[in-house]
């Protein structure tokens, strides 16, 4: 058997289904790889060795009993630490949840288990998913396998790095303003943000409820589509979950892989003309546009005039919601408690707990959001931001009357060195410039590797109308079939 950790999820699943390798062997190979490289990568906050082996044994037993196995049975999957996993530490990258073991599984994890995938551990992330570099994790940053001195993207840097370091063939992320796609782009992997409501948020520790979207991360488009199909679909526990079947993303990916995009109309957003973007990123993007045209796609320019207000609107809406969502972290019922000496008051304990439990970016956003929602400022800030959100949605609707999907670079720049943007929050926020409009709109978007710039991966983003997730998989798979996948240097 060749090295199973280098295989795609599709290949691993075939191996297990065909009996050429047991799920336990596959799992052990990945646990070994984690043991070998993760002290340098630091993709994982917790490796659930026991749980993973138990899940793998269960798959092997079911196979032995002749039970039908799902298309991803026996495949290890790394789960962003923002999703609750019963009995397994879940911290959302924060000190305030250090050692917290939830009494329940998130719906995503429930579906992963039901599909026979093997949850192998919890991946590092910016605290409460706030950040674009994983430098805001309370447990130290994750290093980009392409260059250990650079960021792996954020907030889902751990999930993306686990894929790029061959520690897992599949991973789960969550995308509030680009936290699946942006790490995907800077690590040369595939990351998809499904339609908002297309994947359940039940058990996803909330950052910004109206934007948060869990989604698949993989090394190939087909793998991402298979994972998407496993975790997607209506969940009665999430009121915002869409009561409709997931579009057939797997079939769309396979169709795209034939390399034919005849009749597909791609839109390039005028407002994403590249101001502030690195020349290497723009060059890779233009080359990809040529490639897509050669595959038969028609490319037109469309105007989305309100996209330029997306970033400020996002940085009012997301902090506003987070200021409310994070109110429950008070040191009373779960997680960290500081100063409980029997003398201090409840308010003092709560204050000390939050001061020590929350990191700087989380505090910044809570304060920002509290201010934006306060009476007297609500209309000027939150209210205005919601109006901008409506206008951005209209931009998308109008654009999708002209084209099937919109394309752009995923990020304005390739992976940057650690510390280069933490001093200036605005510079950090720019990392999500191209990804944020989609979150405000609610539609799906995917990042797929499209080339290299100065030896580092560049991602292409494909945005589709809500509930048309299949379209973006088709285009992504077509591009992948033309440009191939990108392998980082050996660790």
């Amino acid at each position: 058997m060749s090295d199973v950790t280098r295989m795609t999820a599709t290949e691993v699943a075939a191996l297990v289904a065909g009996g050429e390798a047991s799920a336990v062997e596959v799992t052990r190979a990945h646990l070994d790889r984690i043991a070998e490289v993760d002290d340098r990568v630091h993709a994982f906050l917790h490796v659930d060795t026991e749980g993973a082996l138990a899940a793998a044994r269960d798959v092997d037993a079911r196979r032995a009993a002749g039970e039908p196995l799902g298309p991803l049975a026996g495949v290890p999957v790394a789960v962003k630490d923002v999703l609750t996993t019963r009995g397994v530490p879940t911290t959302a990258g924060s000190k305030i949840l250090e050692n917290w073991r939830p009494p329940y599984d998130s719906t995503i994890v429930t579906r992963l288990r039901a599909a026979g995938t093997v949850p192998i551990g919890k991946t590092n992330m910016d605290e409460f998913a706030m950040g674009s570099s994983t430098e805001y994790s309370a447990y130290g940053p994750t290093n980009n396998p392409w260059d250990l001195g650079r960021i792996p993207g954020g907030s889902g840097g751990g999930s993306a790095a686990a894929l790029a370091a061959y520690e897992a063939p599949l991973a789960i992320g969550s995308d509030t303003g680009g936290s699946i796609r942006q790490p995907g782009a800077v690590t040369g992997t595939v990351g998809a943000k499904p339609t908002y409501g297309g994947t359940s948020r039940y058990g996803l520790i909330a950052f910004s409820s109206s934007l948060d979207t869990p989604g698949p991360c993989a090394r190939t488009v087909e793998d991402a589509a298979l994972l998407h199909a496993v975790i997607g679909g209506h969940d009665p526990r999430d009121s915002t979950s869409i009561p409709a079947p997931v579009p057939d993303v797997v079939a769309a990916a396979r169709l795209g892989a034939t390399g034919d995009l005849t009749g597909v109309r791609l839109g390039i957003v005028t407002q994403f003309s590249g101001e502030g973007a690195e020349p290497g990123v723009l060059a890779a993007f233009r080359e990809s546009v040529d490639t897509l045209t050669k595959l038969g796609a028609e490319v037109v320019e469309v105007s989305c005039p309100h996209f330029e207000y997306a970033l400020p609107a996002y940085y009012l809406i997301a902090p506003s919601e987070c200021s409310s969502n994070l109110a429950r972290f008070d040191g009373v019922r779960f997680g960290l408690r500081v100063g409980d000496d029997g003398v201090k008051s409840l308010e003092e304990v709560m204050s000390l707990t939050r001061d020590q439990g929350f990191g700087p970016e989380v505090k910044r956003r809570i304060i920002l959001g509290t201010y934006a929602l306060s009476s007297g400022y609500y209309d000027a800030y939150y209210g205005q931001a919601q109006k901008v959100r409506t206008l951005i949605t209209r931009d998308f609707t109008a654009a999708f009357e002209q084209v099937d999907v919109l394309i752009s670079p995923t990020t304005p720049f390739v992976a940057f060195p650690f510390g280069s943007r933490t001093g200036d929050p605005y510079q950090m926020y720019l990392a999500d410039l191209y990804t944020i409009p989609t979150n405000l709109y609610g539609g799906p978007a995917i990042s797929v590797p499209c080339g290299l710039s100065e030896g580092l991966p560049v991602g292409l983003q494909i945005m589709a109308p809500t509930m048309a997730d299949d379209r973006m998989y088709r285009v992504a798979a077509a591009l992948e079939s033309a440009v191939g996948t990108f392998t980082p240097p050996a660790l």
Partner: protein
Amino acid sequence: MSAIVLPSYDDVVERYEPVVGLETHVELGTNTKMFCGCPTDFGGEPNTRTCPVCLGLPGSLPVANKAAIEATIRIGLALNCSIADWCRFARKNYFYPDMPKNFQISQYDEPLCVDGYLDVEVQGKTVRIGIERVHMEEDTGKSLHVGGATGRIHGATESLVDYNRAGIPLVEIVTKPIPGTGALAPETARAYVTELRDVLRSLGVSDVRMEEGSLRCDVNTSLNLPGDEWGTRTETKNVNSLRSVERAVRSEMLRQAALLDAGTKIIQETRHFQEDTGGTRPGRSKETATDYRYFPEPDLVPIAPDRAWVAELKAALPELPRVHRQRLQEQWGLSDLDMQSVLNAGAVELIEQTVAAGTTPASARKWWLGELSRRANEAGVDLAAIGATPAQVAELQRLVDEGKLNDKLARTVLEGVAAGEGSPTEIMAARGLGVVSDTGALTAAVDEAIAANPDIAAKIREGKLAAAGALVGAVMKTTRGQADAKTVRDLILTRLS
């Protein structure tokens, strides 16, 4: 604050005009909580009726309870409100030790029901109370303070929280300000809460028990000089009996009048009602009021009640208490005064059910307002708790109608019914209380009476038939009241003719 001398109530209402407003919280009687599937039963071992959702654990999400939405719409319809085509939940952000998420899911500027009214009777006059809104929210948990002498937080060594109540569906019903009630402001407030309680009970949406907190009131009161704008209001929180509603309004009127007389401004604040004194003490003032930072709840989709569904719910509303009472009064042929005494005795349903079991309204009313009310008063219990059911009362009356019991015997049987000895027929049999109308058995008693009262017998023979009553009485005495009076009288007259 130095003690203030209160003016007299008459003096206050002569010089000031009160405006009251009421916010009533009602716990809905749904099987499950507002946003999760946990049971809503009262009590239970602390924290056994909880789940990640009602505990507000990280990652958990609310899902609105359709039964609660339906109940709220029915309440809105019963209160003549418009039902919103589209509305949303909002988050009310504030810290409260027993509130799991540190925000409450409520409705803010987009309530489900708006702009209705409720007609209530105040001393024989109908007053229309405007309803501002009816909206849904979730209840909080309960704190228990342990180690102190009083059970309050002061002096406690530790505080425990029970989240069983957290997430119970609540409906808040807010009136518009009620001006123009003058001296009857306290009675009007009470009449409103009473009528509201009856409406909610008739809808079957809540057990409306004020003593268990399933219905609780915040009472707003203000005073102004005639012709002036409305005064600054205070809000007296969590008033939990009908009597206290009335007392709270009255005491706030007196307190505010004293302050205004002294030239002191009323500050807008929440106050707490004190059952022992009937007064209020200050709570939070507006200066330190929380900024709730309301915004639309992003975890829940908006509610857009289907119009056909709302129409169905409207068509299926039960007859509301006021209409129901008017119909019964008409059917029973009662004067306003008589109906009032039925209402005061809390006997409407009991009489109605007794009539339904086959008794005339007059007979039913006679038993419930007479013998049974007397017993209830003596025992100091509600009429409904006296131990006799409408079916038993109807059976008793039937026995009287059939001549098997006379009035006196019937009262004795009723005593047995109230004591739980069984049905009237069973008690009659067990105690041997039936009327004896068998002539054979009575003839001896009649003859005995005639022999013992020759003077009376002579008068009857002379044609003075009215004298027969004395002999009937004598026979009744010897038969312990069980003889049928008419049979006895006939026998006497036959014997002496």
